[in-house]
């Protein structure tokens, strides 16, 4: 409420500034025209040396330019202020979400430790509680890592371990590992298509991409989850289509979901947890690989498809590999396994 009011104040200030500017402009024109007419009328009588045969427009134009400049600066400040306010709002959301994401596992760990300390817990329960604590510890670790890695990614300080891989086996291996890690039923993920090409990729970074996409699919699925992955290669582009049967993404939100800290708040969304960093992270990793990501959804409850396009190694060898080689020189982590 306070923030809305603060925005309203800024809008009012902006309107007042524009009104002040328009008044100033009007006054300036009025002053110039009035003086011009007065001088034209009585100038010769006061000082015959003054000549008004031609209109001296320089001061007039300079005045106008200054006033227009003033208006542009006001608009620019207002625009930037709005961007800042929007960022602050997103940041507040992020802080709220991250606080929740940090405190929940911490509470759980504390609860189990205090339970084990104060009660005579049977051994099978002890094991269950310890498993929960490990799970929460991992959750905290993932969260902290994601924040640190996004920060490193943004500052281009992340040491990527790029290698050249056969696209299809790499992706298949990643999805098998994911299914095991998330303990998904056997038929949850199906992979279609062929991809007989090579890509330059950081395997761990690719894993982060699909972990995030799968995590979202799990969060936003009402029924049993089904994931379909389509692989395709043409001369230049390796395409991965990652489709789920979840609740879908409304048209208006599709562009925004990759923004930092952005989260969709809807009553029908079954899970409200998250930091708003996942898809931003995914997009940054894809961009670092020289690729792009887009999202499509046929509508609500009709699932979502993320399409990731990565450059094919053979086609982009010179440009892309050179770029990675430059990176490799600085972090000495690149190895081109097939060379």
């Amino acid at each position, binding site marked *: 409420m306070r923030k809305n009011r603060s925005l309203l104040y800024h809008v009012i200030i902006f309107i007042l500034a524009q009104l002040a500017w328009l008044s100033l402009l009007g006054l300036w024109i009025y002053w110039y025209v009035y003086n011009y007419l007065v001088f034209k009328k009585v100038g010769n009588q006061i000082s015959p040396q003054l000549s008004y045969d031609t209109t001296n427009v320089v001061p007039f134009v300079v005045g106008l330019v200054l006033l227009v400049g003033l208006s542009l600066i006001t608009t620019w400040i207002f625009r930037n202020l709005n961007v800042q306010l929007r960022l602050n709002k997103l940041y507040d959301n992020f802080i709220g979400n991250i*606080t929740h994401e940090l405190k929940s596992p911490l509470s759980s760990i*504390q609860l189990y430790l205090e*339970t084990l300390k104060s009660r005579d817990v049977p051994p099978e329960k002890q094991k269950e509680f310890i498993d929960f604590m490990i799970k929460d510890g991992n959750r905290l670790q993932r969260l902290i890592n994601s924040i640190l890695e996004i920060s490193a990614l943004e500052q281009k300080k992340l040491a990527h371990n790029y290698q050249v891989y056969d696209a299809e086996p790499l992706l298949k291996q990643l999805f098998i590992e994911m299914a095991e890690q998330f303990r998904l039923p056997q038929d949850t993920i199906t992979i279609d298509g062929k991809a007989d090409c090579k890509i330059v990729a950081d395997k761990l970074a690719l894993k982060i991409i699909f972990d995030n996409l799968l995590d979202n699919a799990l969060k936003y699925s009402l029924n049993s989850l089904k994931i379909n992955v389509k692989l395709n290669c043409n001369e230049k582009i390796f395409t991965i289509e990652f489709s789920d049967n979840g609740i879908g993404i409304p048209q208006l939100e599709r562009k925004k979901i990759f923004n930092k800290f952005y989260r969709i708040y809807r009553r029908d969304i079954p899970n409200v947890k998250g930091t708003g960093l996942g898809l931003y992270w995914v997009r940054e990793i894809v961009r670092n690989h020289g690729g792009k990501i887009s999202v499509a959804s046929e509508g609500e409850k009709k699932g979502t498809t993320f399409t990731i396009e990565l450059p094919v190694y053979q086609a982009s060898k010179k440009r892309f590999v050179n770029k990675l080689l430059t990176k490799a020189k600085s972090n000495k982590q690149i190895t081109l396994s097939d060379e």
Partner: protein
Amino acid sequence: MNDSETGASRILLVEDEETLAVGLEYNLSEEGYTVSWAKDGKEALKFFDHEIFDLIILDIMLPYINGFEIAEKVRERDPQIPILMLTARTTKDDRVKGLETGADDYITKPFHLEELLLRVKRMLKRKKWYRKVSTEMPVVEFGKNKIDFEKLKCSCSTGEIRITPREAMLLKYLIENKGKIISRKELLENVWHMNPDIETRTVDIFIARLRKYFEEDPSNPVYIKSVRGVGYIFDDLALT
């Protein structure tokens, strides 16, 4: 018959974090309570519609329906059931909103198990006390005021009003101890359970509200009088 009358109080635990909920369920069960666990807002309301509970432990950030909305809906149907909000949200605005929407107490994550169990115990004790007193004294009249403690409805000079459970408890406590001077500390202990987050000023605010409802001239009260520097007294001659 309600389970609470046979000894085992029924608690509805509304928490979407599985790891936390399992631990809480275990501890509450160990304390002798019967616990039902709802994983989201929809399930919580479904449980509430079909079963009788003595207390609700409620998270705020829940799937489908958030804790504030649940508290409001629960309060519409049952003004007396104690609600303990258990949440990671710690801002003053969240606390105020939680208490305004009908929560009786608010505890933030991470919390100490002992403290949580103590609060639960006290809330249930208070509920039993309130029920007992309500049964003994369901309707009270003083002056032009008539208070139905069961339904939390009052008819007073301003017309028909509904009071909150906390206001009812405070009034009931004052009436029960009519003629005695009651300190703010005593009120905090017995009506608010000495919640460290609640300041003494809160007592004064609630007293001011009661005076607004029931006194002809709230600035010159005849029923709920102040005893300077000590606390309050309910005039024992006022009761009819």
